[in-house]
């Protein structure tokens, strides 16, 4: 027998060893946990969850395990897993995915007085299958260096005006926040008018890949105005209080500023729906400040104050578009097609 044979036998043996080691380690990783109470969450939201969940565990003795990912893929995973899913709670950063999940039968309706009181009707499913837990306002931002207060546009449609040609930065149509804003325009003003506005945006705007780029581009003089979620600006201001971009609450004399939600529901095949419901109830009440405030989002619960920076710099006393999040979700696909049609990239 020649050398090569023995060597490849050794290679095969070590490969097998590594493989079994890998499986063993994975098994260890997946195992653990005993009879203690656990809620398992699939979540498209990442930031500051740890802190909120840790506090929940401290207060209730129920531990929370979570698996994060992106909204749509997690929704597909729960749908495919069916009865076998480990998810007790599904949490997203956008209303359209909640509405779609409800349509697919992923959520079980909840009968909860706590949630009925804590979450305003426009921020939850009409059939109580999911509940908003924090508010993300999408509004107009502008350069405080190049625009006077009275020059700042206050309507989404203003940015479609030829006067703003080449002075606008917006986010691309693949983004869920852009989609939900356009969906709200379709719902509030009809297809025709929404089409006219979005076509005007496409003519005027530089389309960028994320909200942070929109804000930095305004600061650097690439454009004078834009539309972003409010908390991205809050983060910038937290790092640099003199960041030269300001915010106006849009549509105050009309439909109100468009808001999206981060929210959650209990899954149809949850192992312990009551525990899962307790987590959502806690997040909508005692956990509001940690859950929403940590990321400078606005609480859904009217009895809870927004974090200091948002309150001081932006003011929280503004008219919010109270179009139901489910309605926005339902128009999401129309919004995407509309943006394709008018050439909004």
């Amino acid at each position, binding site marked *: 027998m020649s050398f090569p044979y023995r*060597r490849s*036998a050794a290679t095969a043996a070590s490969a097998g060893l590594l493989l079994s080691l*890998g499986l063993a380690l*994975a098994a260890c990783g997946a195992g653990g946990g005993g009879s203690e109470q656990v809620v398992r969450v699939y979540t498209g939201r990442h930031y500051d969850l740890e802190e909120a969940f840790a506090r929940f565990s401290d207060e209730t003795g129920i531990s929370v395990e979570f698996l994060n990912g992106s909204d749509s893929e*997690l929704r597909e995973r729960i749908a495919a897993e069916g009865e076998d899913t480990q998810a007790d709670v599904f949490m997203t950063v956008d209303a359209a995915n909640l509405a779609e999940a409800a349509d697919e039968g992923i959520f079980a309706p909840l009968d909860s007085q706590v949630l009925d009181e804590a979450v305003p009707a426009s921020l939850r499913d009409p059939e109580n299958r999911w509940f908003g837990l924090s508010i993300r306002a999408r509004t107009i931002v502008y350069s405080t260096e190049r625009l006077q207060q009275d020059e700042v546009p206050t309507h989404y449609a203003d940015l479609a005006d030829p006067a703003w040609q080449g002075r606008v930065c917006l986010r691309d149509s693949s983004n869920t926040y852009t989609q939900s804003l356009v969906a709200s325009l379709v719902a509030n003003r009809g297809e025709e008018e929404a089409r006219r506005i979005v076509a005007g945006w496409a003519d005027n705007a530089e389309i960028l890949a994320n909200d942070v780029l929109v804000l930095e581009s305004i600061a650097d003089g690439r454009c004078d105005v834009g539309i972003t979620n409010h908390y991205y600006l809050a983060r910038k201001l937290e790092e640099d209080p003199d960041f030269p971009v300001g915010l106006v609450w849009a549509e105050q004399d009309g439909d109100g500023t468009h808001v999206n939600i981060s929210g959650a529901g209990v899954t149809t095949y949850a192992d312990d729906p009551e525990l899962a419901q307790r987590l959502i109830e806690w997040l909508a009440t005692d956990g509001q400040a940690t859950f929403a405030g940590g990321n400078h989002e606005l609480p859904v619960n009217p009895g809870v104050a927004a974090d200091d920076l948002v309150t001081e710099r932006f003011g929280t006393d503004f008219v919010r578009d109270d179009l139901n999040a489910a309605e926005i979700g339902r128009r999401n696909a129309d919004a995407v097609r509309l943006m394709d049609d008018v050439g909004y990239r």
Partner: protein
Amino acid sequence: MSATADAPPRPAGPGAAAADSAPRSVQLSAADRVSAAAWPAVAVLAAALVLAPVAFLAGGLLDPAVEVWQQQWRTRLPGELLQTAGLLVGVGVGTVLLGGALAWLVSAYRFPGSRILAWALVAPLAVPGYVLGFVVLSVAGYTGPIQGSWRAAFGQTARFADVESLGGAIVVFTLVLYPYVYLLARAALADQAGTANDVARSLGAGPVEAMRRVTGPLLRPAIAAGAGLVMMETLTDYATVQYFGVDTVSVGLFRIWRGTFDRDAAAEFAILLLVVALLVVAVERALRGRARFGQAGGAGAGMTPRRLTGWRGALATVTCLAVLVPAFLAPVTQLGVWAVAEAAGPRGTPLVSRFGGYLANSLVLAVTAAVACVVVAVLLANAQRFSSWRPGALAVRAATAGYGLPGPVLAIGVVLALVALDAALGLLGWGLPGAVATGSFVGLVYAYTIRFLAPALGAVEAGIGQVPDEVTASARSLGRRPAGVLAAVHLPLARTSVLTAAVIVGIDAIKELPIVLLLRPFGFDTLSVWTYNLASESRFQQAALPALAIVAVALVPVLALAGYHRRLGSRP
């Protein structure tokens, strides 16, 4: 490892063979028939396993979403196809030129720093495309310091190259992906292509003629294989292209899937991507040429490098650095600066205490995926060798389809296939416990094997393809069964390629994000998941430390491979 051990088994003398084989010949041919049928069966089985998830996605084609196609054709699809084609051609040409030229430079010449540069040039493979894309945009994009100083110096409206563009994306992909071409071309040059070049030169051919008539054709399969991998990676990317505002078919697929919730239409777009991938494969096959090259007498000794001195040597060194700095040194330095700033800042880097767990998970996954991919790739490559049954060969090609699908699409296909398997087993009373079917390590490795089989197979085939048919045939005629030939002849001769395959898969697995994000079990977070968690809310600079960790971990196999190549190069 001595040179003798690397040599193939010497054919025994004719007398010995005749004396030994005569009485056993009947028995052998019966066994032969069994194994001749077994090898293509292996290929078909592997292809079936790989294609099951694809089949679940393609099921919707029976009832196509005609309206969506019409609407997309009227609006964005033509532009997306054009941009996709432009991106593929640009990145393909860029990586072949860069990877091929650099491989030649470090194989054919010695110049100051050439030994270190030869392995350092593989390092960009450790940088995920999405990471380099972000660093480039942060530094050289409109809001970055370079353009900031440019405007400060020449005025607010001073023109600067548009970085957020197709061109910018081509540069980024070329810089992170050229090592595929470089690695495979170097492996070929270290083996027979290099030897043949030396022989051609010693027989009086000039450098150009030797390249055109001898070395070029021998290198072509390796370069074509590398370029094929590069184009597939580019085709299925959707994060980097979106940063750069390039509107590709993948971006369209995700807009339809996530924005209109039309899974079936999105699956049909995935099939369109597969068709493009098949075109890439066809082009790659055509470029490899019809000829098969084998060399009797075992692995080549590689080429004898010539020494470059004076300005020629300096030019060679500068050329290598001109690639290495923007592709690796500068972005890694920038990540380091950010990581230090974040760690020193008030927030610190979140979850850093769990680094050990993330690292262990990444390593376990990468090693397991590499082993699984290489085992399947070796079986498939040999199935082709031992059988000329056409459906078997077709099955081998089909088995690489997973590389032409974006990760999340493939992952959903895997979930659907595993759920169906679970249901089928349930009917037989063997139901898998709980969610083993989806959120399990086994499912994850299954998905990785499907995803990365193509690069593994490409590398293994390149190696086994260089083993001459005559060597296989003599080993078989001397009484070895295919499995024995595989173990005693093919694997030892192709070991560089097999190792290269394992390393490529391992590195890819460490960098991979969308599949692990979607299919991982509860608690199984890896380095790339950690990066994603921080980057997903546009907190990119916080993600610098985890991104650096990915690069550092992926560098280990890269350097190991480079070191192995170096020992090969200095072998007597």
